């Protein structure tokens, strides 16, 4: 009897340890699942923001506690000025938070005037994302996000300028020249990729 009790006393901590290891690995898998869910919820929040603009709801809107299924998202629509055709320009910000994980989407939106009734035309562009825990209703946080996003937009301007200023042959030879420095897995299909890039090159 003593032996049996001794045996069980040794095995129980071992089994407990093994179950803990399994549990922590599962927790990691759940963490990435939550990340993806937070992103999806933020995306649906962004669509909800676009729907509001299409419904001709105008001006500053701060909705910090909206629902998408079982999860919550915050929506902030911030006017930034007027466009060339009289359309209103906005920053469209959405944030979803699941436990400690944050996901924020920031985009620009243009809301046109109703002609004659809603839905009005809305153009959204330059979506940018971050997992930093920004508070989208705070101007300081919005400015900080704008700065990070702005750096990437400057790079976009550089790449687009390069495409515009290169001739088709220059662009093609520049892209082809990179082939030898690519991994073997990409090299085999690179010619086809260059063809697509050249076909879709931005021109003046």
């Amino acid at each position, binding site marked *: 009897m003593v*032996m*049996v009790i001794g*045996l*069980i006393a040794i*095995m129980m901590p071992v*089994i407990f340890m*093994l*179950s803990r*290891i*399994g549990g922590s*690995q*599962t927790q*990691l*898998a759940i*963490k*990435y*699942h939550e*990340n*993806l869910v937070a*992103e999806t919820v933020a*995306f649906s929040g962004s669509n909800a923001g676009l729907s509001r603009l299409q419904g001709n709801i105008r001006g500053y809107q701060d909705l910090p506690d909206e629902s998408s299924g079982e999860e919550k998202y915050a929506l902030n629509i911030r006017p930034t000025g007027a466009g060339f055709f009289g359309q209103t320009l906005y920053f469209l910000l959405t944030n979803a938070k699941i436990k400690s994980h944050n996901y924020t989407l920031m*985009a620009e939106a243009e809301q046109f005037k109703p002609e004659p009734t809603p839905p009005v035309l809305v153009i959204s*562009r*330059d*979506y*940018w*994302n971050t*997992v930093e825990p920004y508070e989208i209703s705070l101007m300081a946080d919005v400015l900080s996000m704008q700065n990070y996003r702005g750096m*990437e*937009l400057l*790079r*976009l301007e*550089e*790449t*687009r300028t*390069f*495409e515009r200023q290169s001739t088709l042959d220059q662009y093609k030879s*520049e*892209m082809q020249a*990179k082939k030898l*420095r*690519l*991994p073997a*897995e*990409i090299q085999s*299909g690179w010619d*086809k*990729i260059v063809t*697509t*890039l050249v076909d*879709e090159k931005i021109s003046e």
Partner: protein
Amino acid sequence: MVGAAILAIIGGMVANWFVMQRRYQKRILEMSDAQQSIRQASWNMIQELRTARNLIYPRLNADKSIKSDTMTVFKNFSGDIVCYYHYPETGEIRRCVVPNDSGAPIIDTKPIATRIDKVAFTSHDLGNRLLGIYLESGNTVGLESVYLLNE
């Protein structure tokens, strides 16, 4: 004698239970490892793909049927060309950035995903904005899709 026999039976039962527990734990560990690899890989790629601008490869076939490959190429938020490709020898998904100007390609030193046995990136729409991602790790599979938001 009877006591020894009872002890042996109890010992056998306990040992059998212990072996079963170990097998069960091993199976759980393998599955959760695989799930973690798949989720991590999906997260890393979707983060960048969501705000990308244009899917360059793969694209629909000439007859408009879907096309799959073990690599994908797209223009990211900044307009540079990003490639994700599977490296079957090590089960890794790697990332390479090709500057969309005169710079040289940069291959990330760290893979964006490990322990991935099979990958298929599938183009789903004419507008080149919807990409399916199939991942397989061990006996576990994952299927995600991502819509490219920017133009």
